[in-house]
């Protein structure tokens, strides 16, 4: 067969076919001649007769070339002239696209790997940008986010601290209540804590993201309900006495198809029935970076929501992120200076409960309350994600 390939290739040389196309035609035609030779040999023809008959098949090769020239569009090789304005941009572009598609079609494995690589690259970049956007760029979707501040208090935290990032940004519930009642600088101060929920209802149980929040949470953030009501001070009356919940708009849509019938119906959350009293307005995604709660529950339901750990009334349990809205007249520096006189008496009142050494006492009482910008949300997770995003 190889000798036929050379014969055929010689005859096609003048056509200037594209290399792959020429190889295909040569292969197909030489196979035909090979088959013909095999057939002749098996019928008893001599080698000379066989060769003669096969060449006879190519006897009208001028016809073959002529026909192929008409059918096969050979590639016109034009000299490349830099800066030449010949041809239209759209025409060239269309030609390039068709050429690219032909090349991709020829090698499906290469195409698959290339497409997969591009998809992974685009996906990874999109995910990273989304995270960067949430952690570093996007303001909380609440009223006047620039007035919000996050509280921190570096120094000893006797007892247990629950955080995934910055221990100094975690406070106990008793301290939060004291600070909320006794300060001159905040128009409102809220507390929140993220948790996972098992939600049972409509005959099935599923995981959801929850948030234990102070009763003034929605009021401080300026978030109104889309349906029913948000929490009022009565929803933080006493431990275990407020079995209610507010749903995020997204969760209401996704799980309940915007059914208003969900209102005033109980949902079992972590084994405790809580009555849904409202749905937060659309677009509200919570006060913590990188986390979108599905359900909001009063902080006083702590023991029911985390049955293995209460710590609600324990000043040595530091677990709440605090977010304040500054009064209009205060700058952050002024507010920080003013807060220390409110903070010190609280620390002094807590000191006897802390059971720490004399040296530790001094450091404890010297703790200051610092204010960081809070327009992008509380720090429960942001501190952890910020550096990698900057890199």
């Amino acid at each position, binding site marked *: 067969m190889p000798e036929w390939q050379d014969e055929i290739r010689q005859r096609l040389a003048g056509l200037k076919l594209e290399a792959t196309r020429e190889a295909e035609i040569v292969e197909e035609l030489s*196979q035909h001649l090979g088959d013909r030779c095999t057939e002749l040999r098996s019928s008893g023809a001599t080698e000379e007769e066989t060769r003669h008959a096969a060449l006879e098949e190519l006897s009208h090769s001028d016809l073959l070339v002529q026909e192929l020239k008409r059918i096969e569009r050979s590639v016109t090789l034009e000299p490349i002239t830099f800066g030449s304005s010949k041809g239209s941009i759209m025409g060239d572009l269309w030609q390039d696209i068709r050429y690219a598609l032909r090349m991709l079609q020829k090698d499906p494995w290469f195409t698959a790997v290339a497409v997969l690589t591009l998809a992974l690259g685009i996906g990874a970049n999109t995910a990273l940008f989304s995270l960067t956007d949430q952690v570093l760029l996007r303001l909380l979707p609440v009223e006047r986010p620039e007035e919000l501040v996050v509280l921190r208090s570096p120094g000893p935290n006797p007892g247990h601290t629950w955080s995934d990032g910055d221990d100094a940004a975690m406070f106990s519930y008793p301290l939060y209540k004291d600070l909320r009642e006794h300060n001159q600088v905040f128009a409102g101060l809220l507390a929140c804590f993220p948790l996972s929920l098992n939600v049972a209802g409509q005959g099935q149980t599923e995981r959801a993201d929850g948030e234990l929040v102070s009763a003034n949470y929605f009021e401080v953030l300026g978030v109104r309900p889309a349906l029913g009501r948000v929490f009022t001070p009565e929803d933080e009356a006493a431990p275990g006495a407020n079995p209610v919940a507010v749903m995020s708009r997204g969760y209401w849509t996704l799980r309940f198809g915007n059914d208003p019938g969900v209102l005033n119906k109980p949902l079992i959350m972590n084994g405790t029935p809580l009555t849904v009293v409202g749905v937060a307005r659309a677009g509200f995604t919570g006060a913590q970076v990188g986390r979108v709660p599905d359900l909001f529950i009063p902080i006083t339901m702590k023991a029911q929501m985390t049955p293995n750990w209460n710590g609600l009334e324990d000043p040595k349990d530091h677990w709440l992120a605090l977010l304040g809205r500054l009064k209009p007249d205060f700058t952050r520096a002024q507010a920080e200076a003013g807060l220390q006189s409110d903070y010190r008496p609280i620390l002094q009142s807590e000191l006897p409960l802390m059971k720490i050494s004399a040296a530790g006492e001094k450091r404890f009482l010297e703790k200051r309350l610092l204010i960081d910008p809070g327009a992008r949300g509380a720090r429960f997770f942001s501190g952890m994600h910020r550096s990698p995003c900057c890199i």
Partner: protein
Amino acid sequence: MFDRELKKGSAELLILSLVEDQPRHGYDISKLIERRSEGALRFNVASLYPLLYRLEKRGWIQGRWVEKAGQRRRRYYRLTAEGRKVLAAQRRGWLGFVEAINRITGVQRA
């Protein structure tokens, strides 16, 4: 044996008919033409393949390389949906043409 122009006029119909039921490679098509016409019609390499490529270019047949175990790969041609319509039309045309010629020349089937 037959006039070249007469053969040329019917070549498309012959090839389309032969790949109607199953895909066939070029050599198979040429042997079938030779066998079924009892040697009266014969296409060699130079005449058969340009015709196959032309039909493929028009989208009436589609060629595809097929590899079978223990054999070298071969290019099989199958009839496309478009080709099937063309074949039906060409069959009707051919039949009408033959009948008209018969009527004029008085040639009758024995």
